[in-house]
């Protein structure tokens, strides 16, 4: 059981493990791979785009009594319509998502991944699908935290390996009193400890926290404004699938222009957000 707790739940941005594993596999087998197949042409002839994510990242990916819902679902459905193909979804633990992408078990990772310099070397990123700026969440009844700086001298939890946790550490270093940082394999465990009173705040991207706080307003409240540098979530494809990524980017930009994106954002985030229409240069 321990194994699945640690491995199964490591997520989103705990890419280091994924990178190491895929690098090892890729390195061993690089020679044996059938390299030249155009994924976009394949998808069009099949009439189906197979997308994978971990359906445990609300409001992006939710498995509500077995039905896949969320921002990613609605956006990829709209993108599929643009491409003229049907979309099918795979629910994989985060650690399996990137190895599965490399092993060509599916065409595209629609889990939101923060764009970083390191990751750009290994994967092709789509244009941003959402804001990923780091923010904090506290217990709803905690009056001692009103702004991000109030975490000085307190304990804050976040998911190990995420860019949001890294930003928290950088932010905390500038505060007058040291912040104790607790690292979790999964954001949901950090929220559980926040509710239980073991930590004073949880760090994650603003959209995730806003949704969590809205779902459990009895327990949680978001600390505004977000403290981190502006970062973005994108989808991820294989580096050599340039034609597929180009087609998906064109579709996302079109949906951004015709108001579809804004409608999805309004529904899930309660507000709209402006997103760059090109893959931004990562700041972290």
């Amino acid at each position, binding site marked *: *059981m321990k*194994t*699945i707790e640690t*491995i*199964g*739940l490591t997520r989103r941005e705990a890419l280091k493990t994924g990178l190491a594993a895929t690098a090892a*596999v890729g390195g061993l*087998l690089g020679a*044996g*791979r*059938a390299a030249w197949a155009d994924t976009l042409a394949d998808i069009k002839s099949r009439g189906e785009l197979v997308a*994978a994510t971990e*359906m*445990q*990242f*609300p409001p992006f990916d*939710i*498995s*509500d*009594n*077995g039905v896949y819902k969320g921002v990613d679902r609605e956006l990829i459905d709209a993108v599929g319509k643009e491409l003229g193909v049907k979309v099918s979804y*795979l*629910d*994989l*633990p985060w*650690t*399996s998502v990137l*190895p*599965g992408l*490399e*092993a*060509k*078990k599916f065409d595209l990772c629609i889990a939101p991944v923060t764009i970083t310099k390191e990751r750009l070397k290994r994967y092709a990123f789509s244009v941003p699908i959402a804001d990923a700026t780091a923010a904090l969440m506290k217990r709803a009844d905690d009056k001692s935290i009103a702004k991000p700086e109030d975490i000085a001298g307190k304990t804050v939890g976040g998911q190990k390996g995420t860019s949001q946790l890294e930003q928290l550490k950088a932010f905390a270093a500038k505060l007058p009193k040291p912040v104790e940082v607790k690292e979790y394999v999964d954001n*949901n*465990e950090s*929220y*559980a400890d926040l509710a239980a009173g073991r930590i004073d705040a949880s760090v994650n991207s603003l959209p995730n926290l806003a949704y*969590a706080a809205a*779902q*459990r307003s009895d*327990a949680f409240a978001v600390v505004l404004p977000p403290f981190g540098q502006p970062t973005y979530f994108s989808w991820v494809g294989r580096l050599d699938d340039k034609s597929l990524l180009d087609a998906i980017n064109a579709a996302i930009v079109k949906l951004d222009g015709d108001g579809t994106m804004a409608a999805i954002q309004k529904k899930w985030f309660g507000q709209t957000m402006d997103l760059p229409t090109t893959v931004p240069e990562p700041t972290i």
Partner: protein
Amino acid sequence: MRPQVIFHSFGYLTQSAGTTLALSLAGIALGFLIGAAVCAARLSRQAWLRRLGGAYVSVFRGVPLLVLLLFIYYFLAEYGLDIPALVAAVGGLALSSGAYQAEILRGAFNALPRGQAEAAVALGFPGIEIWRRVLLPQALRISIPPLINEFILLLKASSLVSVVGIAELTRVSMNIASSTYRPLEAYVGGGLFYLAINLCLAGFGAIAERRLAAGAAR
């Protein structure tokens, strides 16, 4: 604690418990066939068969199930061998469980006093009859408690097959935990299903043991 969360997701949990049960039973049954074959190889008079059986046990008992599943599903795909998730899941469970079941069966055969087979030979039983009427019934009886143990372990280990994208009980509990932000309720719900299934398995084991014990008393 809000039990409503469990009631609300009851259908989803039941469905995934069915998946867990079906996968585990398939893994157990296939694993038993593999185990019987490997055990036969390990008890063989042929040295190369014994070595082959030994190597099987060493490899599949030595490799963690999680790694085995990842290997079957992702690693083989790199060689163009695209194994469907369901086949990878049942195959992984069976290959791994087969190694354990082989050793359970071997232990049971080794526990039988040598004199029994010798007495049967002296009484003029043909070879196949010695197996069928003397050795096998006793070995099975001895191996029932450890086999039930192994079945229960396998059922719980089947939570690992979510790495190939199958929505089994643990995975679904996690999904519920993350979509409701109520982890305690979700895991209590999942845990109760595991407990119910395993109590049934243990019950069947007890019945089987009683039946076979009655046979021995005759």
